[in-house]
């Protein structure tokens, strides 16, 4: 089910004016603190009324200022995991989980099952006082899941979780999507979560959508570096394993050449995604000598963006793929990196980001 959003709303001095589609899969809303992500999600959930606009989910109209449609919150069938967990203090953990099925009959899953997946079985009989931040948030996620919504709205749901727990829950969210076809609209600051989960990205800045599309495209737009943050900017490329020789170094084909990665745990022929951060790419006008086995791709410079600070962002074409590099202004000038120039991109580090086969193989989150 595709979610279509086109809304406007004035909040104090802040003007929200967002239009985007969230197709099936996991759409990540990404933007800096205060950019309006929560306000958008609240509008979709019906907790904030847009001044005007439309919100459709599949063929259901949730809101339409022209047609004066405004489906009440409880009929929208959306699961909302709040930034703060908002557990009901007067109910036990189990009753919190069962809340949706109690009030609306929604949801046929047993709470134990979901609790098991979230590692909160031992809390079921407890009351909510004294729960740790992470425990509370896991219960909140479980509660929303058990409502079996058409779409899950998640507002930084994992921010208070520790790494191992995050890593455990993420695959469950993926499975959930695969199993039930429920789409997810996901707000996060965490680029690793984006790379891991996103099938679609919406970049928000100052209340407006500045870019949206598949991660491969959005993340390699040099204008987006400012929004994404320099440390998180980088490309996501599709790759195929072409050889797994005995020396433990796997050979991957990308559209622009070959990459060599030690011990990629996937059979020859599998498709996967690799993530190359802009800060891990350096440029050279000549093919570096004596470094034959380092990952080097010939590229053509598409754009050079100077930001504040000493660095520049270079967008390059490598085969059919786009790459980003962040180099110092000084070396950019010295090397004569400019639009149209051809050079070589040297990758300090390449991370396997997501495969279609084995979900267990991702980089650390």
């Amino acid at each position, binding site marked *: 089910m595709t979610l279509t959003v086109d809304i406007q709303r004035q909040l104090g001095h802040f003007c929200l004016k967002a239009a985007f589609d969230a197709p099936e899969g996991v759409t990540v809303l990404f933007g800096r603190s205060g950019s309006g992500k929560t306000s958008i999600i609240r509008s979709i959930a019906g*907790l904030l009324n847009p001044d005007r606009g439309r919100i459709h989910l599949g063929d259901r109209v949730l809101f339409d200022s022209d047609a004066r449609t405004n489906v009440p919150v409880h009929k929208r069938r959306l699961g909302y995991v*709040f930034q703060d967990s*908002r557990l*009901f*203090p*007067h109910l036990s953990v189990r009753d919190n989980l069962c809340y949706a099925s109690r*009030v609306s009959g929604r949801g046929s899953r047993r709470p134990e099952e979901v609790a098991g997946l979230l590692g909160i079985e031992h809390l079921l009989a407890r009351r909510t006082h004294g729960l740790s931040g992470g425990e509370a948030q896991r219960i909140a996620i479980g509660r*929303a899941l058990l409502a079996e919504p058409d779409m899950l709205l998640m507002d930084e749901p994992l921010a208070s979780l520790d790494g191992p727990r995050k890593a455990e829950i993420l695959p469950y969210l993926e499975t959930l999507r695969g199993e039930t076809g429920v789409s997810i609209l996901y707000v996060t600051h965490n680029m690793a979560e984006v790379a891991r989960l996103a099938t679609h990205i919406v970049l928000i800045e100052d209340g407006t959508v500045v870019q949206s599309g598949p991660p491969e495209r959005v993340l390699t737009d040099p204008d987006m570096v400012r929004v994404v943050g320099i440390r998180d900017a980088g490309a996501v490329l599709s790759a195929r394993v072409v050889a797994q020789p005995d020396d433990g170094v796997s050979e991957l084909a990308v559209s622009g050449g070959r990459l060599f990665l030690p011990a990629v745990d996937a059979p020859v022929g599998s498709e996967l995604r690799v993530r190359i951060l802009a800060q891990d790419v350096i440029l050279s006008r000549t093919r570096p000598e004596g470094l034959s086995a380092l990952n080097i791709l010939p590229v053509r410079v598409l754009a050079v963006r100077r930001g504040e600070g000493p660095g520049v962002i270079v967008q390059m074409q490598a085969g059919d793929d786009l790459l980003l590099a962040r180099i110092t202004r000084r070396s950019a000038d010295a090397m004569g990196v400019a639009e149209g120039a051809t050079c070589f991109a040297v990758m300090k580090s390449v991370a396997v980001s997501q495969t279609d086969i084995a979900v267990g193989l991702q980089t650390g989150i």
Partner: protein
Amino acid sequence: MMLGLGPEEWQAVLLSLKVSFWATLVSLPFGVICAMALARGQFIGRDVLNWLVHLPLVLPPVVTGYLLLLSFGRRGPVGGFLYDTFGVTFAFQWTGAALAAAIMAFPLMVRAMRLAIEAVDPKLEEAAATLGASRLRVFTSVTLPLILPGIIAGAVLAFAKAMGEFGATITFVSNIPGETRTVPSAIYAFLQVPGGEDAALRLVVVAVFIAVAALILSEWLSRRVARRIAGK
């Protein structure tokens, strides 16, 4: 018997308990509705409702009683109507005493509940709505449990006030032994006759005892409930 209460005095005590209990119980749902409307409602007449509710607090009880007599008396417009259509009569019956007590206690009840409702975090109600709860379900499953301490406080306050109510009661339904002579009326009667002070004092002690018991019970209940709704 303890305190040496005579049968008539016991009668007054039991009657007071009955009157206060029913006054509190019957006005409870109205109190909750009023408090919700005042705390959350956005409607014309909200202010009018607010001061109507508070009227019995402001008026001298005698006036309230007199107004009750005028309207709910057997010849009053409301009382006559109720009598003709339902055969219900308040005048000079213990039900009338309960009505007077309920009306006098109503502002206290509503105030206490209203403050409790205003203290409920709307974020929790939002969360409930996103989980599929209609407005009514949100109220019954989230708001109501969370304001329980406020409701208890309101109810006990109302009960205590009902136990002490005198002016409106005696003016409305008089002071008929066994029917409308509640503890305060009995105390009044004793104070009116020479030498009645001792009997009055005995009744005062009983009244205080009952009220203190109610308060302690409510404190305990309230604290238990408050602990529960704090998730402990």
